[in-house]
């Protein structure tokens, strides 16, 4: 048993375990267990019972998601399992740790997941800049092929599975599940309409599961120790542990595996060492650039999907960005919206055209050249670019921090507006003249 199913084999002071070391530490026992002793249905039941929720940001129950994949002899083939290792949401630095720290854990998670789904092929879709992680994963996969953990009739059973690393070449939208599938097919990464959902019609129209790296890395220990063990790891109703991170003007920025539901105050004070000297906490994004802002008064809320959701934000990736009291706040908002504007895939108009308008309006406010119309546009954008008006969740994600910033810090925006000087003859001038008489 362990309290840290994700990071127990990770020690940044040494190279990651090779296959022999990982096996000696108990690795690939879950693979042996599922193939020798468990049916895919029994494994899926463990996944459902565990309450594991997707760690990529949306928090969808993994067992339920997987239960939509057609099973049995009549299921369309090939079936696919894909690891979303396109970690690119600003402020997020957790999957890099998992892949660089223990590549065999993700590989085992992919093989175990592949068995549960009775998949034929797996892909690890990794962002192009993670060169070292891709190298380590390729080496781990080669070791597994040599050992018979990948290939035909794995461990003497009747199930065969192949696994490949796909390195990408930039663009945040690739992390969107259906855009990722288009990208993996060698196309522009524009999102697809849903339904059909990828579980039924994904890669090349075949059943496909896409899950975040951290989600898949939970599978080996979950199979080894069971659903009840997994649930008791958490402090709250949302099961398991979570990789939490804190970055910004804090003394000890980092990423730590802790019980799900650990409050931000503990992350900030005990793990991140508190704010840097001379800086105070103004606000924070709990889990990446698309998660609405939270305030110091929210520091004691458990950091899980349910509690953070009730505050009108999202746990997202669980890696918090701290915004201090001395940063140019409007500049920080502009930086975030610049990212989203640049990374729009361009497929739908509100996102492609609306986000650059948002960025420009924030740019004028930042330079103290903004007018009331800029502020009005920002307010309007928070519904025009929100859920229901765009093709995917990209622009709504961009509106998350902006909408909460307008709600919590209206004075930051208002103080940057320059009122036009009253000119003789215009309405304001007339109004001023009439009141003086």
């Amino acid at each position, binding site marked *: 048993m362990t309290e840290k199913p994700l990071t127990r084999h990770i020690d940044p002071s040494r190279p990651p375990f090779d296959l022999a070391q990982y096996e000696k530490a108990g690795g690939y026992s879950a693979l042996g267990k599922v193939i020798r002793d468990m049916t895919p249905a029994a494994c899926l039941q463990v996944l459902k019972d565990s309450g594991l929720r997707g760690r990529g940001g949306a928090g969808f129950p993994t067992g339920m998601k997987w239960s939509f994949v057609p099973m049995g002899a009549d299921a369309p083939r090939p079936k696919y399992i894909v690891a979303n290792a396109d970690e690119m949401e600003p402020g997020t630095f957790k999957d890099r740790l998992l892949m660089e720290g223990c590549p065999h854990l993700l590989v085992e998670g992919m093989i175990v997941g592949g068995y549960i789904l009775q998949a034929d092929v797996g892909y690890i879709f990794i962002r192009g*800049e993670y060169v070292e992680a891709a190298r380590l994963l390729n080496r781990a996969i080669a070791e597994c092929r040599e050992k018979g953990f990948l290939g035909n009739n794995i461990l003497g059973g009747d199930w065969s599975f192949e696994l490949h690393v796909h390195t990408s070449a930039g663009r945040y939208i690739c992390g969107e599940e259906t855009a990722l599938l288009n990208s993996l097919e060698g196309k522009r990464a524009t999102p697809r309409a849903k339904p059909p959902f990828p579980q039924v019609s994904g890669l090349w129209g075949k059943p496909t599961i896409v899950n975040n790296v951290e989600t898949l890395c939970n599978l080996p220990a979950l199979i080894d120790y069971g659903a009840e063990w997994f649930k008791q790891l958490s402090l709250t109703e949302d099961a398991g542990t979570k990789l939490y991170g804190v970055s910004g003007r804090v003394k000890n920025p980092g990423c730590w595996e802790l019980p799900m539901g650990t409050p931000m105050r503990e992350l900030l004070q005990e793990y991140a060492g508190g704010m840097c000297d001379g800086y105070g906490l103004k606000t924070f994004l709990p889990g990446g650039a698309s998660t609405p802002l939270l305030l110091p008064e929210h520091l004691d809320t458990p950091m899980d999907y349910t509690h953070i959701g009730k505050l009108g934000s999202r746990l997202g990736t669980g890696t918090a960005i701290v915004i201090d009291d001395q940063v140019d706040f409007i500049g920080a908002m502009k930086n975030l919206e610049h990212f989203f504007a640049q990374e729009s895939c361009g497929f739908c108009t509100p996102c492609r055209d609306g986000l650059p308008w948002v960025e420009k309006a924030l740019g004028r406010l930042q330079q103290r050249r903004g007018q009331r119309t800029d502020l009005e546009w920002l307010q309007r954008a928070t519904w025009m670019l929100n859920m229901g008006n765009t093709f995917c969740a990209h622009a709504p994600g961009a509106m998350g921090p902006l909408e909460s910033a307008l709600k919590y810090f209206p004075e930051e925006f208002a103080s940057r507006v320059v009122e036009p000087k009253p000119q003789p003859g215009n309405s304001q001038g007339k109004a001023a003249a009439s009141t003086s008489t």
Partner: protein
Amino acid sequence: MVEAAANLSSQHLISNLSDQEIAEIRAEAAHYEYPQAASIEALKIVQKHRGWVSDESLREVARLLDMSAEQLDGVATFYSLIFRRPVGKNTLMLCDGITCWMLGCEKLRETIQHRLGIDYGQTTADNEFTLIPVTCQGACDRAPVMLKNMRLHSHLTPENIEPLLKGSE
């Protein structure tokens, strides 16, 4: 299909791609049901060998993967790490993610501007350096960071960035 890609390449004279490039592209294409799926990796292979993807290279890769050149150019121009114009011998990719921005990436940009005389998207006259902004590099605990020739350098300051601005590693 993968076999189709193999046949195609033998039917056409691939004058612009080296045997090495073709072998690497075929190895990637073998991972997928359809050769087009290897398009991004194929473009990256060409870029690894040549620094960028010219129109000629693009046409040859398209032929190898059973795509039209227009289709492949649509892919090439979508992805930010594929260069459709020549770049310098060294690429500097400065992270402009929110944490790096808060911790001073603009100061690093100014240092590079001052020292090398280039801004985002520009290459030095001696063709040594190209400066490009990149999105969050997933190393926010070590901000601010920069990739030099795809290698990560962290905890940068206007002072300790100096050695990185002195030619190849």
